[in-house]
């Protein structure tokens, strides 16, 4: 169901062109989008803006995405925020431990997904679209 104000999304991604493309696609669907290029930057934005959903890359300069997710889940404001891992890294043991513990809504390999898939997953995670999209 549409709300009066658009849902706020935070894209945590250090690859600027990728962020730009995602931002355009998501804004085209009516979302409001903020960007962060590092985990530290993302924490600052998230604490301040309390986004409705975070699209999170894993390989980031400094603290990585799974570290950021863990830190978020330990804080009161970040416990329930839906997170979609958006990465090109195949999951290893460490990542899987974080996935099980910190419950992201999806773990998406960017190269295997279209931007439409990602927009669709964002909507599902926010309860704006049923899971069985077919």
């Amino acid at each position, binding site marked *: 169901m549409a709300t009066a104000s658009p849902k706020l999304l935070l894209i945590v991604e250090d*690859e600027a*062109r*990728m962020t730009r*493309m995602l931002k355009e696609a998501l804004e085209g669907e009516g979302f409001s989008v903020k960007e962060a290029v590092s985990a530290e930057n993302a924490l600052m934005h998230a604490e301040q803006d309390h986004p409705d959903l975070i699209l999170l890359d894993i*390989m980031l300069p400094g603290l990585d995405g799974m570290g950021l997710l863990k830190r978020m889940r330990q804080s009161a404001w970040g416990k329930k925020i*839906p997170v979609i891992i958006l990465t*090109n*890294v*195949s*999951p*290893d*043991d460490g990542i*899987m431990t974080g*996935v*099980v513990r910190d*419950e*992201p*809504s*999806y*773990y*998406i*390999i*960017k*190269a*295997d997904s*279209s*931007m*439409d898939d990602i927009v669709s997953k964002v909507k599902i*995670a926010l309860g704006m679209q049923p*899971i*069985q*999209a*077919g």
Partner: protein
Amino acid sequence: MVSPIRWLSSLSVSKKFYIIICSMLFVLLFGLGSFWMAMTTMSAIRAYVAGEGLWSKAQKEATISLGRYAISHSESDYEDFLRFLRVPLGDKRARLELEKQSPDLALARQGFLDGENHPDDVNLLIFLFRRFRHVSYLDAAIQVWMRGDAQIEQLIRIGSDMHAVITASGMADESASAALGAALVPLIRENEALDRNLTLLENEFSATLGEGSRSIASILLTLMTALSALFGVLVLCIYLVIARTVTEVDAAKSEFVAMVSHQLRTPLTLIKWSVERLRKSDLSVLTPHGRDDVETMHAETKRMAAFISDILDASRFEAGTLIIQPYELDIVVAARTAVAEVLPAAREKGLTIEEAYPDSLITPADPTLLQVIFANLLSNAIKYTPKGGVIRLSLATQPQGTIIVVSDTGFGISTDERSKVFSKLFRGKSATRIDPVGTGLGLYLVKSILAAAGGSIRFESAEGKGTTFYITLPREGMRSRKGNIHLASPRADR
């Protein structure tokens, strides 16, 4: 100076393994050689103990025969005396031959055989004498043996003197008989004294040999213990080298895989998304060739992305152990979700997907792996079924477990390619023609997952009519397995 550990670390893996194999072979051969030596030595000592028994028995019999001869004056007793002496004399011939610089082993062998030693023991007797002649215990025993032989020479002389005295006496009357008796008395006493001396020498020989035997057994035990310890240490070192090498190779491989995933996928993502955006824009400004080029880029980037993921999955799958984390889930829901994922592609191609499920089918299964199985079989069915075709997905419970059936009305698999369908990177001729985007890894992964999870897969196919895959999940559900490989992208739907 380079330390051995640093030197070993600098070697290539193959050289390390050559060194390991050579060290193992050396220790193994040394161990086997030592064991052979130990067994042969102990057997040889046993043969000497047995030989000493025969020597002593013969000497005693000779002494008794001589004593009897002194009373009976019977030639047969004297002949017995001489016959019993052949044993110590045979052994003596063997000893004297073996003492030479270049002994005639045939003569030595014959000497020991004359000493009534068992033919199988003769070589052992020669072996011990030649190899350990100057080892203290054997040397002492041989000195005793030499003294014994000297006493045997005296015994021969006593016998010879006695024989001469008895032969010379006519025994014509009582006085002559008394004179003979008087002449024999000192010889009889000498014979008895000699016997006592020889008994002492025989005891000394046995004691020396026994002492030597115990000493050699102790040395061999120490040697075997040291060898076992050396072998154990070597095995431990080998284990450490292998563990370290495998860890290094694993780490290098994981790092390489991570680098490949990120470095290849990142530019590919950008190209893929750019092409997707391009396809959504107005392409009418392009020439037909230009539009074809956009479609080619779209198809090829998808193909490359799928190929990279499949190759990474297959490589990780082979490098480690696939983790299977089953929990009770409704396979009907999983099947419906999988169908929903592929429905747009099926519709685009004008295919119908028919579903036949029970209301629910709860069984322990790993949702991620189940997703990989469904996705691969359904996408294959869509790829290889021509427009207007039907794909059927059905689920059922049977005594052997949960049965998943995926059938299509597609092109089918040719007879000569059926045996290779589950092989890694195999692509049939028609598959390559129909779908150049495929990687030939999907069914290989499905079969490998099912094998690891305790399930199975088989298929029936008729060319031009279609293919049906039958998957069986064990009745107790997917088998849980600890490991280090998560195969596909995990999805944590909430």
